[in-house]
């Protein structure tokens, strides 16, 4: 069956003067529409590489990356990237930061501007629209970063450890916010992380990678969506079961 997003037998080798480093080996995975998939693996297993491949910023050495059955590299505008740090531009106001992508694509239409304003409104950032990033808290900045991505109406959100730079409590809150926003806006999302609990609490499916060169090792379907926010999901009795199962899978990774 044709999947929304599909990686089919993807290899990726990084070349540098000192040699070549295989980062990914024969990675095959799929993501369904409106699904939230977490890719979990030890540091340096090529998680970020997978996102760069999906976003078309890198070309696979071999294999295919398909979106709706077509090569994903040709459909760059379907992806929205969210990074570890918010990467807001300090010289732009919140509103200007949010509109960055529209400026870049030359799509500052009335409709898009209204959408951006609606998002700012909806996620309690309207009052801060004329402030500069330095005046906002870490969690708010990460929310702005997500809105900056959403304004472009991407088909798929790519989240590259978007909470790891935040302190523990903020991380839980932002995790809830982001999870809520993604489900409200009905977005497909791929999250890469090394944080097991984060993956389980947010995703519909967790894909475990091996150490470098990364390849898919196991897959877990998480059925906690009835529980509500990531915070609630963490308290669900089933959470621990998933946690242990995936933990074991990661442990055997080390050997």
């Amino acid at each position, binding site marked *: 069956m044709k999947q929304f997003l599909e990686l089919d037998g993807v290899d990726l080798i990084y070349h540098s003067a000192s040699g070549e480093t295989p980062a990914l080996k024969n990675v095959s995975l799929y993501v369904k529409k409106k699904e939230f998939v977490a890719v979990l693996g030890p540091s340096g297993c090529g998680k970020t590489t997978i996102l760069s491949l999906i976003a078309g910023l890198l070309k696979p050495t071999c294999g295919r990356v398909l979106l709706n059955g077509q090569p994903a590299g040709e459909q760059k505008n379907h992806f929205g990237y969210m990074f570890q740090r918010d990467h807001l531009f300090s010289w732009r106001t919140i509103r200007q930061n949010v509109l960055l992508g529209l400026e*870049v694509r030359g799509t500052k239409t009335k409709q898009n501007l209204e959408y951006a304003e609606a998002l700012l409104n909806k996620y309690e950032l309207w009052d801060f629209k004329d402030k*500069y990033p*330095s005046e906002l808290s870490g969690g708010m900045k990460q929310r702005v970063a997500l809105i900056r991505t959403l304004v472009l109406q991407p088909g798929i959100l790519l989240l590259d450890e978007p909470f790891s730079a935040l302190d523990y409590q903020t991380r839980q809150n932002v995790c809830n916010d982001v999870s809520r926003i993604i489900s409200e806006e009905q977005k497909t999302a791929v999250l890469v992380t090394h944080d097991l609990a984060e993956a389980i609490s947010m995703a519909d499916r967790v894909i475990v990678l091996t150490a470098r060169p990364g390849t898919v090792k196991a897959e877990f379907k998480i059925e906690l969506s009835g529980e509500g926010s990531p915070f609630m999901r963490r308290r669900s009795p089933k959470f621990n079961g998933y946690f242990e199962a995936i933990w074991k899978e990661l442990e055997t990774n080390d050997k």
Partner: protein
Amino acid sequence: MTNEHKKFLQMVKKKNAEVRLAQIGILVAFVGIWELAARTELIDTFITSSPTRIVNTIVMLFESGQLFEHMGITLLEACLGFVIATMLGSIIAIVLWWSQTLRRILDPYVVVLNSLPKIALGPLIIIWIGAGLQSIVMICVLILIIITVISMLNAFLECDRDKIQLMKSMGANKWQILTKLVLPSSIPAFISVLKINVGMSWVGVIIGEYLVSRAGLGYLIVYGSAVFKLDLVMTSTILLCILAGGMYLLVAWFEAWVKKRRK
């Protein structure tokens, strides 16, 4: 406002006033002792001049119409050198940022040009483009431009890779990455380059005037020392201090304005 805060503000104000008073005090004391030593013939005013003689020289220069001519020409040269070098240097840095290949090819030349004492090129420049304002500005530009290119290029290359990746993921082209990200994020570096250049441009201009000139403060210094009119040398040096200080203040004021706008 609480009483405590009022007291605190008063203390800050008092401290500031004290610093300002000490600054003025040093100047007054220096000039006073100098004048006193000159009048009591403790020092030889033929060699050290004196504040009165400097003021007299300035008045004399002013009355003969030479004061603003010399100051103006040096100021013009310094401003030209400063503006041309800063603009051209930044443009070259942008070109080198744009093309990694060009950057690699030109790297050894930049290194050699940077270590070369530019004043060594002075005589050549005078022969090539002729004695006069143009060669003085040229020497000034040469002294400033290499360091401008290197500093600006480093600032451009230090731009956060993830931010560039973010722009790319939005579909930005290289021009957009340059204008929306790399240039704005390099403004602090640009300001520090301005501050360095504003000082260095005076070095360049005075060196240039020493080598070849018929007017300007550097010319007055060379001329004054040749005919042993040290009043003229001292006067020119002080006028130079005033001009250079004024130009630096302008840049500092510009910096404050930019900072205020960017917060």
